[in-house]
C-alpha cells in the first residue's frame, strides 16, 4: 500500500494505482474529469488531457515537484506523492485550455444531438468552458457515416478519445474500425461503412463520451430527460441481460448498459464488465421481453440532472471573458 495526498486529502491505495483511480477512491470533486480513459477498456487514456493534474511532490523519496502537469489516468501514484487537482490554479487554467481545444471544432449542435443531457463534453464545457468562443475559423466537418445498420457516426462531434476503437479491438482481432488520417483531419472510420460484424458492437455507443456514436433505433425519438430509466433484465444467451431500459409510459424507447457515476459500464458480480449484446440493445423494445426491476438512479453530474440551468448557479457566476 502507498500513501498519496490529493487536494489535501490523504488516502492509502494499492501500489500501481493511477492518480485518477486513487482520486475516484476518495470521490467527490477531487476526481479529475476523464474523457478518454475508460477503466474497462485496456489501452485507453492519455489522449484527451482533461485529467491533467499537478504533482506538487513526486514521492516520499524524491519530493521534487514534477515540472509538467501529468495525465492522472495514466500516471501511477508513488508513496508520499502530493497531487493537486481542484486546488491548483495551473490545473484550472490548463484544463480550461483543453476544454477550449475540444470545443473549437465541435459543432455545438446540442439542441439536435441525442447525447444532450448525458454528454460529458457538455458537463465539461459547463464546468470549465468559457461562455464565448475565440475561434473565428470554419469548423471542420465530415459527412455522417453508418457503422453496421444500427449505429450512426457523427464525426463532427467526435473528440477522438479512441474508446470505440478500444471496444472494436476487444471484440474482434479482424477489426476494420480505426482511425484514418492525422492531426485535426483524423477521423474514426470503418474503412468506409464496412460494418464491424459483432454482436457487441453496440457498446461503442455506450462508451462514447459525446454524441458521435448514436443508436439509430433511438435517434431523434426523445430527449433523454423525458424518459424514465428503469433497471431491467432478460434471459439472454449472449450477454448477462442486465440493462437499463429507458421508458416513456409503458413503451421502451431505448436500451443501454448499466453505467456508474463516471459513465462507465458496471461490472457484473463475476467481475466481468456488463456489456450488453446488440439484440438486447437494438431489438428488444417490447416491454414484455424484460422483467423490470425498478427505477435506476442516474448518478452523474449532468447539467440536466442537477438542474443547474435554473437554480443556484447563475450564468453570471461564470467568467464572461
Amino acid at each position, binding site marked *: 500500500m502507498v500513501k498519496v495526498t490529493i487536494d489535501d486529502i490523504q488516502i492509502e491505495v494499492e501500489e500501481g494505482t493511477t492518480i485518477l483511480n486513487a482520486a475516484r477512491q476518495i470521490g467527490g470533486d477531487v476526481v479529475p474529469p476523464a474523457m478518454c480513459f475508460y477503466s474497462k477498456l485496456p489501452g485507453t487514456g492519455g489522449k484527451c488531457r482533461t485529467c491533467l493534474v499537478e504533482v506538487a511532490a513526486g514521492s516520499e523519496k524524491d519530493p521534487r515537484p514534477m515540472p509538467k502537469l501529468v495525465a492522472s489516468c495514466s500516471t501511477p501514484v508513488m508513496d508520499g506523492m502530493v497531487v493537486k487537482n481542484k486546488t491548483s490554479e495551473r490545473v484550472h487554467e490548463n484544463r480550461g*485550455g483543453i476544454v477550449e481545444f475540444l470545443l473549437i471544432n465541435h459543432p455545438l449542435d446540442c439542441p439536435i444531438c441525442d447525447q444532450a443531457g448525458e454528454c460529458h463534453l457538455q458537463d465539461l464545457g459547463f464546468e470549465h468552458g468559457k461562455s464565448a468562443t475565440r475561434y473565428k475559423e470554419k469548423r471542420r466537418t465530415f459527412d455522417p457515416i453508418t457503422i453496421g445498420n444500427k449505429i450512426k457516426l457523427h464525426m463532427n462531434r467526435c473528440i477522438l478519445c479512441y474508446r470505440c476503437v478500444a471496444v472494436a479491438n476487444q471484440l474482434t482481432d479482424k477489426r476494420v474500425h480505426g482511425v484514418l488520417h*492525422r492531426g485535426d483531419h483524423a477521423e474514426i472510420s470503418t474503412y468506409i461503412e464496412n460494418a464491424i460484424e459483432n454482436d457487441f458492437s453496440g457498446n461503442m455507443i455506450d462508451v462514447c463520451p459525446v454524441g458521435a456514436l448514436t443508436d439509430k433505433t433511438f435517434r431523434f425519438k426523445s430527449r433523454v430527460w423525458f424518459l424514465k430509466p428503469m433497471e431491467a433484465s432478460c434471459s439472454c444467451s449472449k450477454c448477462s441481460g442486465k440493462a437499463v431500459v429507458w421508458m416513456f409510459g409503458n413503451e421502451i424507447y431505448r436500451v443501454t448498459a448499466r453505467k456508474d457515476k463516471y459513465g462507465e459500464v458496471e461490472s457484473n458480480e463475476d467481475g466481468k464488465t456488463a456489456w450488453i449484446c446488440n439484440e438486447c440493445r437494438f431489438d428488444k423494445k417490447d416491454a414484455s421481453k424484460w422483467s423490470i426491476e425498478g427505477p435506476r438512479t442516474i448518478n452523474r453530474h449532468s447539467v440536466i440532472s442537477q438542474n443547474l440551468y435554473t437554480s443556484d448557479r447563475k450564468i453570471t457566476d461564470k467568467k464572461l471573458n
Partner: protein
Amino acid sequence: MSRKILLEHDDVPGIETFDVYRKHGGYRSVEKALKTMSPQNVVEEVQKSGLRGRGGAGFPTGMKWSFLAKPEGVPRYLLCNADESEPGTFKDRYLMEKIPHRLIEGMIVSSYALGANTSYIYIRGEYMWILDILEKAIAEAYANGFLGKNILGSGFDLDLRVAPGGGAYICGEETALIESLEGKRGNPRLKPPFPAVKGLWGCPTVVNNVESIAAVVPIVNDGGDEYAKIGLGKSTGTKLISASGNLVRPGVYEIEMGITVEEFIYGDQYCRGIANNKKLKACIPGGSSVPILPAHLVTKTAEGTDRLMTYESLAEGGFASGSMLGSGGFIVFDEDQCIVRNTWTFARFYAHESCGQCSPCREGTGWMEKVLNRLEHGQGTLEDIDLLAEINKKIEGNTICPLGDAAAWPVAAAIRHFREEFEWHVTHPEESQKRNYGLVLPKSTLV
C-alpha cells in the same frame, strides 16, 4: 578546423561499395570490438566519449545504452532512426547516400554492445533511393561475413534490415517509430514505460539517430577518450550540420563542435556568408522545432560573448534569448524574408504532421495554422497575435509527445523576437501582400 570523421573519404570514388570502403579502413571497428572487446567495454568507451544523441534531444548515448534492461531470455533490439523529416534537416541523408557502410559498421558494433541480434534501420518513405543504397550495402556486408551468423568467428550473430516508413514526420518520434515498425498506425506511446524497458514487440529497445550510430565507429577505433578531446566541453566530437536558406554555399558540413557561429556562416570553409550581399535577418540553428534567433542573437549571446556551435552555447539565454542545437538543421534568413510567412509555413507542417491523438496538439496546431494563415494574408487582428501566444501556452508541456512543444516553440519565439513584423502585417495588409512573392492567396479560413 573543418574536421572529417564521420564523412571521412566521402570524396573517394566508389566509397559506397564494400571493397573501396574496406580498403580505406572500413570495418576496423567491427574487428576490434568483436575480437578484443566485451560488449560492456564498447558501452564504456561510448560513455567516455561523451557522445550525445544527434537526433535532436542531445541525450548522452552511453547513458541511454546503460539504461537498457537486460532480462534473461528476452531479445533486445537496436533501431536506427533514419526518419529524418524535420524541415531543414538533411544530414543523415548525405551520410547514408555517400557512405552507407559507415552506418552499417556502426550498427554492427552498436548491436554487439547492446546484445541485439536483430536490428533495423527505419527510413522515411521519401528516401526510397537510399533504401536501395542501404540494401545493396547490407547485401555486401552479408557476403563478406560482417552480417549474419557468427560474424568473424566471434559467435555474435546479427541480422540487419531496412524498414521504410510511409512518410510521416511523427514516425521519427521513437515510440511512434516502434509502433510503425510493428505494422501499426504511427501514434506515439504513453511513457513510461520507456523503450529501454518495453520497446519493439514489448522488448527492451534502443533507438538512436543515424549520426549517433555512425559516431560509434571512430569512438571504438580511437577510444572514447580520444573522441572526447574533439569538440568543446560537454559538446564532444563532430556534428553534421545541414545548412540551408540564403547562404552563399548551403550544404552538409561536418564541423568540430566549438567553432563560432560567425565562422560557420561567414567562414571560407563553410557557408561563405549571406547570398546576394544581403544582410542576415534571422537564423534557426537546429531544425524547424527550435526557437528562431534574430540577427543580433545569432553570432553573439545576449551577454555579448561569441555564440558557438555547441549544445550549451546555442542554448545560452534559455528561450528568452537562446535556441538549441537540435538536429543541426541550420536555416538562415536574409533581410528580405518574411518571418510571419515562415512561421505560418512551419505551423502548416506541424498541423499536417500531428498524429491527432492528444487534443492540445491536434486542435492547437490546426488553430495556430489557421490564425497564422490569416495574419500572413492580411486578415489578422492585433488580438490574433496574443491569441497565438496563448494557444501556444496551452499546448506546451500538455501533450503526449514532444511534437506539441516542437509546434509551439517556433511560434512563441517568432512572436517574441519579431512581434513588430506580425503587427505590421495587421496594420499594412496590402503591403504585406506584396511581399507575397507572387504566391496565390489561399482561401480564407474565416467563417
